[in-house]
């Protein structure tokens, strides 16, 4: 993959807040990242860390109010998705940018056949005739490995198993040859052996179709297996960003380090006791003018409570938002 390639998607300084009766929730704070053609960008974080809200913000999927995008740019195909008209955005969404949601049980419409649901984007976005759309729908089902595709077009979602439904969701997302596929926890609701099938399918499809993928998950194991680069999110911010091998070999942010220690493995040394990250994730009601992880951090010091750390470059496309330099074992001077 050439490093010089123009990013297909470039997000700068995105900030989303939710207005609630209890005050403003700072769900996404100054998030910036870019996606290169053909790469798979993993996004990890716990629930409430802002990973899904980030992706929904950039596609205009959040109801407003309560959500409000304060500032930021989302450049895709030479246009800022946050500034274009709703109709234009609708053409991008489901067309050039495909979306796969977490729960295949609830994201398919139970009263329409699977065939009709795959044909919908084909007819809306690509203006295909009914017959052409039906042919393409069959090809898509074959592409995602559903046996007996022609017959299954007339089946309803409840006639498919969980793994098969997620394949249907992927087929819908792929219908219009997207340049970018955003997959939000696509395997979380599935069993491990079915998850392995979907992960393998995804790798195949990327090779075949050459699209860029953003893969949101809380499972570091999944990320290790498929991602090229990883963003780690905590408290609505990107706290670390690195190529996948560097992230696991040399994590720089205290949160990433702690997270990697808490997950038990099925091989290797078995820890006598699990390492725990004490405390709870932040509520994000406070303005983001301090490090969100400071209360649970084992290397936090005075500065962390008065200033929110920027993302410090640590070399080789790796950065971490922390005032503490894990390599020297001392606070950064900058």
């Amino acid at each position, binding site marked *: 993959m050439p490093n010089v390639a123009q990013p297909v998607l470039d997000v700068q300084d995105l900030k989303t807040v939710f207005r609630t009766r209890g005050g403003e929730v700072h769900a996404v704070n100054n998030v910036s990242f870019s996606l290169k053609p053909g790469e798979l960008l993993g996004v990890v974080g716990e629930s409430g860390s802002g990973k899904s809200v980030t992706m929904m913000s950039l596609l205009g999927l959040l109801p407003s109010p309560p959500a409000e995008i304060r500032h930021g740019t989302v450049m895709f195909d030479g246009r800022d998705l946050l500034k274009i008209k709703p109709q234009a955005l609708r053409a991008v969404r489901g067309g050039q940018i495909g979306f796969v949601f977490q729960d295949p049980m609830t994201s398919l419409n139970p009263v329409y056949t699977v065939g009709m649901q795959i044909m919908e984007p084909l007819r809306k976005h690509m203006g295909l005739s009914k017959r052409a759309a039906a042919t393409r729908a069959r090809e898509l089902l074959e592409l995602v490995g559903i046996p007996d595709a022609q017959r299954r077009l007339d089946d309803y979602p409840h006639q498919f198993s*969980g793994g098969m439904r997620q394949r249907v969701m992927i087929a819908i997302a792929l219908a219009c040859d997207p340049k970018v596929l955003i997959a939000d926890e696509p395997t979380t609701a599935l*069993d*491990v*052996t079915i998850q*392995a099938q979907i992960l393998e399918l995804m790798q195949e499809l990327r090779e075949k179709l050459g699209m860029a993928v953003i893969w949101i998950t809380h499972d570091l194991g*999944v990320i*290790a297996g498929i991602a090229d680069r990883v963003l780690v999110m905590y408290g609505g911010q990107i706290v670390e960003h690195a190529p996948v091998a560097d992230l696991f070999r040399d994590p720089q942010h205290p949160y990433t380090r702690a997270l990697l220690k808490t997950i038990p493995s*099925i091989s290797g040394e*078995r820890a006598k006791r*699990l390492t725990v990250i004490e405390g709870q994730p932040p509520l994000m009601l406070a303005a983001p003018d301090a490090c969100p992880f400071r209360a649970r951090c084992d290397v936090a010091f005075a500065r962390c409570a008065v200033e929110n750390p920027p993302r410090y470059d640590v070399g080789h496309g790796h950065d971490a938002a922390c005032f503490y330099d894990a390599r020297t074992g001392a606070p950064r001077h900058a």
Partner: protein
Amino acid sequence: MLDDTPKPLVRVRDLKMHFPIHAGLLRRRVGEVKAVDGVSFDVMEGETLGLVGESGCGKSTCGRAVLRLYDITAGEISIDGREIGTMSQTKLRPIRPTMQMVFQDPQASLNPRMTVEAIIREPLDEHTSLSMAEKTAKVAELMDAVGLNRKFAKRYPHAFSGGQRQRIGIARALALNPKFIVCDEPIAALDVSIQAQVVNLLEDLQEQFGLTYLFISHDLSMVRHIATRVAVMYLGKIVELAPREALYRDPLHPYTKALLSAVPEPDPALARTSGRIILQGDVPSPSNPPKGCNFCTRCPAVMDLCKEIEPDYRQVQPGRFVACHLYNETTTTADQTAGTGA
């Protein structure tokens, strides 16, 4: 204990739990879902038996059936030497304090209209004749034991986070000093960083109160951490049961092998090199299991024999049980029913 050999606290033999399917105008019985179809195992005193499998394999039903939350179809269950398999629910009531359950979803298993104190006190109201003051003291003690601040006793469940709610559920299960606790996916609904807190708590309590756990989970890496022995279920049956280290180092049953290889490893170097066994297809319906071995439709090592004859569940090495025709010759003992072992 008088001797060193572990005694089984819970002994389950050939447990079956079938649910009828009714259909048509007259709601006639047209078949049954064989959720649990003949499982046998022992849980030793003080150990944690992990019960793993994919969704729909019957592991939760098995856990609930062992506690007699259902009227079982067939089989024997004895807890602490008493046979409870066919006992009536009325007769079971005085025995219930010894066996408790921690549920998966702490959101759904706590009554939103009861305070934490009332939730933890409820088992004491039902089963003991303590005075109110004694109960309040006991509740405070339990809250300390699970790491909840006593000051929050008057609050309602919604005021707590997922991990804290699970602590409330654990405190409630502990209220009557049980010996045996079935933990049904206790950490599945929690975030990764909170899971470790709850697992450590369960381990501490086990040591402190000498508890015995049946730990039901689909998370193989967490089970490796907490369990002493592990049973693997597939489509209503136990396909393999072995001590933890042996199972993870050298799985025998083809399903266990596939299941372990499907777990994503949090290590990019390992994740990309290890040969992953990808199973084809989906789990068959438990209302219409295949003839022969239940796994024969997806097994990478399937033989003709497997499609005809169901393999026996037997001991192939000391303490290791497997139900697979691949191990027919290696049988070391004729013991075909016991789930006991080292």
